């Protein structure tokens, strides 16, 4: 195993005091950047990129990838504590994480989120280590029909989260509408901008989410009398250990989400799609599925594990093919090029030292990251002890800063306020927010890949069954979509058979 030798060599390179120091700096900066919504991974990496120009490429990439881990970990913190996802992939974490915090179980939720992330990321790194060349080829199998099939699968695994299917569809269509604002990638023309240049960039997903979730939640809480029942939470390191005791119970969810995540990272459906799919699938197949959304640890673990497995696996296509799986990966890619490294099929051959140094640093920084974030759990959970009347204005200010940083635009803050009000009413009227957010995030990509596929096939729908890969995904998606009908028919069939047997016996 020549590669393993290179990996251990990589460990030796990464484990100098200087590099370990860089790791800690990277992770802490990453957490800070990740906690502020809007100032997410890509911005953080971009801001710090110039700092690394004077370092050796190895130290620089170690620091930047630690920053990447830091932001990944930190995304869960605001989702759980304040219902504000810092990153797109932590939206699904709010569904159960925030109710848990409300019940005074923020420590448990944070611990399981971090641990789930760690496991997901670890599986992702293992995958990169052992299957890099094989898996990289798989990404090439994905053309427009395959991408569409994957997005369809994400949507179908998520449909039916609301009680009322019509409300779900209305929320989803609203999301599609919002996603369509801006330039249409296929025709190159502007849609729904009404000649207003501020609308050119479209409505950023984060603005929608900060408004709907963050502000909307605060409005609802205010109405309920400024109460926040997280105060009495036990907050010490014991919580961490107690939570760890519970986690093995969820082994099936962990494995399932890791697989979904790795697969989505490579294909590259991305961490956001992975987290939604991880949540949706866990909800459907878990014994406690119907309790999801009310504060189930499993509902925190499922999306976090999937998101991180995907986030990690997404680095593989970047290194091996030169296509970034996420915006942060894209900025990292730019960094690599400045150091004179050309990501692509030859990177693994020509820059062995660098690649294995990076992979080794991924193992180390993941472990270092877990230790650092776990030790901050009591600190973050303690924030909830602050009275709501003090914390609420702070959250609103943080939301506003976050909304502003996305595009440095004042208008985005007004949008955020508007979405906050919309979020309040949707909640009052019992519309599910998750499908809306999902279609804001994935709507545009879904639409574009569908239309690309249609351009290629001249409008023939059979392109979605044109090979084994896309056929399988599409069929799976359709089964998931009609799962309630399928399972109903299945049980009916079972009953009929039972009747038949009973009839025979009689």
């Amino acid at each position, binding site marked *: 195993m020549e590669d393993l030798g290179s990996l251990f060599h990589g460990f030796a390179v990464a484990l100098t005091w200087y590099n370990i120091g860089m790791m800690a700096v990277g992770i802490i900066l990453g957490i800070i950047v990740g906690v502020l919504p809007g100032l997410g991974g890509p911005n953080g990496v971009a801001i710090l990129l110039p700092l690394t120009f004077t370092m050796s490429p190895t130290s620089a990439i170690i620091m930047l990838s630690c920053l990447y881990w830091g932001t990944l970990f930190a995304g869960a913190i605001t989702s759980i504590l304040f219902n504000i996802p810092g990153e797109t992939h932590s939206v699904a974490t709010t569904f159960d994480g925030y109710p848990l915090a409300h019940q005074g179980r923020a420590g448990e939720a944070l611990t399981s989120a971090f641990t789930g992330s760690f496991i997901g990321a670890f599986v992702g790194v293992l995958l990169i280590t052992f299957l890099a060349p094989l898996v990289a080829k798989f990404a090439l199998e994905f053309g427009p029909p395959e991408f569409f099939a994957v997005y369809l699968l994400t949507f179908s695994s998520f449909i039916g989260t609301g009680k009322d299917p019509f409300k779900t569809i209305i929320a989803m269509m609203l999301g599609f509408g919002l996603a369509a604002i801006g330039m249409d990638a296929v025709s190159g023309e502007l849609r729904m901008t009404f000649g207003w240049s501020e609308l050119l960039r479209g409505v950023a997903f984060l603005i929608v989410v900060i408004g709907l979730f963050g502000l909307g939640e605060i409005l609802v809480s205010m109405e309920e009398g400024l109460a926040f029942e997280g105060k009495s939470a036990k907050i010490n390191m014991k919580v961490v250990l107690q939570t760890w005791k519970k986690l093995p119970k969820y082994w099936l969810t962990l494995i399932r989400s890791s697989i979904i995540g790795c697969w989505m990272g490579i294909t590259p459906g991305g961490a956001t799609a992975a987290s939604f799919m991880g949540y949706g699938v866990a909800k459907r197949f878990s014994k406690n599925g119907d309790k999801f959304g009310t504060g189930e640890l499993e509902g925190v673990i499922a999306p976090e594990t999937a998101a991180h497995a995907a986030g990690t696996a997404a680095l593989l296509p970047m290194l091996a093919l030169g296509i970034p799986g996420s915006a942060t990966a894209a900025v990292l890619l730019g960094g690599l090029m400045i150091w004179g490294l050309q990501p*692509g099929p030859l990177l693994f051959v020509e820059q062995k030292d660098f690649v294995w140094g990076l992979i080794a640093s991924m193992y180390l920084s993941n472990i270092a990251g877990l230790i650092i974030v776990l030790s901050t759990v009591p600190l973050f959970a303690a924030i909830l002890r602050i009275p709501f009347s003090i914390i609420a204005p702070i959250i609103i200010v943080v939301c506003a800063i976050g909304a502003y940083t996305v595009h440095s635009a004042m208008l985005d803050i007004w949008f955020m306020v508007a979405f906050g009000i919309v979020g309040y009413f949707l909640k009052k009227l019992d519309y599910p927010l998750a499908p809306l957010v999902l279609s804001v995030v994935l709507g545009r990509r879904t639409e574009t890949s569908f239309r690309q596929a249609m351009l290629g096939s001249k409008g023939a729908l059979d392109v979605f069954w044109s090979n084994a890969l896309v056929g399988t995904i599409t069929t799976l998606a359709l089964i998931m979509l009609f799962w309630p009908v399928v399972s109903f028919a299945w049980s009916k069939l079972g009953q009929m058979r039972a009747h038949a047997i009973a009839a025979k016996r009689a």
Partner: protein
Amino acid sequence: MMRRMRKLSIRTSLLPMCAAALTCSLIAPAQAAWEPTKAVEVIVPAGAGGASDQMARLIQSIVLKHKLMKQPMIIQIKAGASGAEGAMDVQESKGDAHKILVAFSLIYTLPISTGLPLNWRIMNPLAMIAQDEFLLWNNAGSPYKTAKEFLDAVKAAPAGKFKMGGTGSKREDQLINFALNKVYGANFTYIPYKSGGEAATQLVGNHIDANVNNPSENIAQWRAGQVRALCVFSEQRMAYKTKVTKDQSWADIPTCKESGIDVQYQMLRAFFLPPGTTSDQAAYYVDLLRKVVATPEWKEYTERNALKQTFVTGQDFVKFLEKDDAYHHMLMKEAGFAKSK
């Protein structure tokens, strides 16, 4: 007829320019020249990690390393609506000399395809620092080994059989595709992708049959033997003679014209200041850019990405822009990409 306009005859105009510059510097008062007083924002109207972003970040690193500017340089990605967001932002920042736009052909095509009031003529042009080449690529496994063989096959095939992928819609890649279809009777169906990187992997994965990527967008796949470079859409072959793949250098790739396909296209890489900025301010940045392109890092970068080295500023740059604009205008109109009113 689809010939690209000839480069301006720079030589003839160089003499009076130098003379003017000399007298200018002699009679200029001894006051301090303009300098940035706060951080300079570099607006990138394209995606993170793309060619414009990489170039901006490289310049940032050169400026930092050689201490060419006292103030820091910040890179801002404003990629919304195919870059219209960034370009409009600079156009609307009247008089703000701490903001510069990394420009490419979007300044010509976007106003035509979208009807946006974007107009490079009201901005303050600094300099063109390079030109990007476009090549015709196919999958290395394809049986068509030369541009002519390939395009003859595409011509003979029914419409929709051969797919060409490219960056975005109604932009440079689709214009080249249109020109190929028109000049040579090729029969490509154009499929727009998000970026050249995506078009590159889609070609390797055989989801499309060709792309017209820049050298930098396909180099990794070319070196790995996954794609084949058929011809370059320029008047002359590229200058770089160092072997990039096992047996080919950029200079070994024939021009499309040599192969009997008379289509030419190159894309400017240039910088603009917002409208209402002064010539002193422009002079500062032109000087800065001149220093940047003289560094070994820049030379290495242009060679690695097979960019055509050039440095055009002042009146020559404006003349170039006018001709280039006219060429794009003509192509866009013929292709029917102009927004219907």
